[in-house]
C-alpha cells in the first residue's frame, strides 16, 4: 500500500478532543463529587448526569433532522435528505438508551420498571412514531419520492413529538420534573454541586452524539460516491 505516503496527516479536531475531555470529566466527577443527600433517591441521583443527557442529545439530533428535512423540501438537495436520515438514526439510538436507563432508575426509585407516567408512555409513543420513519424509508425505491415523503413524515413526527414529551406531561400529574408540583430543570433549583457536572455532561454527551452523527453521515456520503462510480 503506497497511498499512506500521499495521505494528509490525520489529526483530531478540537471539538472531538473537547468531547473526550468532557466525557472523562463527567464520568469521574459525576461519581466522586458529592451530591445532595435525599431519601429514596440516594445515589441514584447521579444517573441525572447520564440518563437525562441522553434526551438532550436525542433532542439536538431530532431538531437537526427536522431542520434538514425542511431544507430538503425547500432545496430538493439530496444531501439534506442524507443528513435528516442519519440524524434520526443516531437520535433514535440515544432515545432508546434514555428509555432503558430511565427504566432501571424508575425501578430503583418508583418501584417499577414501567409506570403509567404520561412522560414515559408519551416518549415511547414518540419513539414508535419515529421508528415508522425507517419503515417508510425502506419501503420506497425512488430517491426523490423517498426524500420528499420521508421529509414530510419527519417534520410531522417532530411536530407530534414536541407536544407529546414537553407539553402533555406538564398538563397532568407526572412524576417527572416540570409536572404536578415537581420543579423542573431550573437554574436555582439544582444544587450547586450537581451543576458542576451537569453542564459538562450536557455538552459532552451532545458533542458525542454529534460526533457519531457526523461519522454516520460521512460513511453515507462515501457509500453514495461509491455507488455513483459503480
Amino acid at each position: 500500500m503506497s497511498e499512506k505516503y500521499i495521505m494528509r496527516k490525520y489529526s483530531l479536531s478540537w471539538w472531538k478532543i473537547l468531547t473526550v475531555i468532557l466525557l472523562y470529566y463527567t464520568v469521574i466527577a459525576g461519581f466522586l463529587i458529592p451530591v445532595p443527600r435525599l431519601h429514596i433517591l440516594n445515589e441514584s441521583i447521579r444517573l441525572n448526569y447520564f440518563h437525562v443527557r441522553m434526551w438532550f442529545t436525542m433532542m439536538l439530533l431530532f431538531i437537526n433532522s427536522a431542520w434538514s428535512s425542511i431544507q430538503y423540501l425547500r432545496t430538493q438537495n439530496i444531501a439534506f435528505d442524507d443528513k435528516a436520515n442519519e440524524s434520526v438514526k443516531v437520535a433514535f439510538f440515544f432515545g432508546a438508551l434514555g428509555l432503558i436507563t430511565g427504566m432501571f432508575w424508575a425501578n430503583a426509585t418508583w418501584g417499577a420498571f414501567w409506570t403509567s407516567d404520561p412522560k414515559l408512555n408519551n416518549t415511547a409513543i414518540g419513539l414508535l412514531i419515529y421508528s415508522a420513519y425507517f419503515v417508510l424509508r425502506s419501503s420506497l425505491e425512488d430517491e426523490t419520492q423517498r426524500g420528499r415523503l420521508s421529509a414530510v413524515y419527519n417534520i410531522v413526527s417532530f411536530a407530534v413529538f414536541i407536544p407529546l414529551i414537553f407539553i402533555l406531561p406538564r398538563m397532568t400529574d407526572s412524576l417527572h420534573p416540570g409536572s404536578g408540583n415537581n420543579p423542573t430543570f431550573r437554574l436555582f433549583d439544582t444544587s450547586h454541586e450537581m451543576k458542576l457536572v451537569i453542564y459538562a455532561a450536557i455538552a459532552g454527551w451532545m458533542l458525542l452524539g454529534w460526533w457519531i452523527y457526523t461519522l454516520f453521515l460521512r460513511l453515507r456520503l462515501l457509500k453514495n460516491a461509491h455507488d455513483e462510480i459503480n
Partner: protein
Amino acid sequence: MHMMKSIKLLVLIILTCTSAEVVAQATEKVEMADVLRQEGKIYTVVVGLVIILTALIILLIRVDKRISRLESQEKMKL
C-alpha cells in the same frame, strides 16, 4: 502509525501503573489498594467506567480515522 504510537504509549502507562501497584503491595504499602476499597468501593466503579470509556473513545477515533482515509482516497479518484 500515529495511532499505533499512542496505543503503545497507553499500554506502557497502564503497565507502569499496574506494576507500581504490585511493588506497593510487596512492600506492604497498600495505600493504592485501600483507596479502591474506600467509600463504598465507588472508585472501583469509576475505574471500570473509565476503562470502558477509553475503549469506546479509541474505537470512535479509529473509525473516524478510517473514514478520513477513505475520504481522501475517494478525493484522489476524482
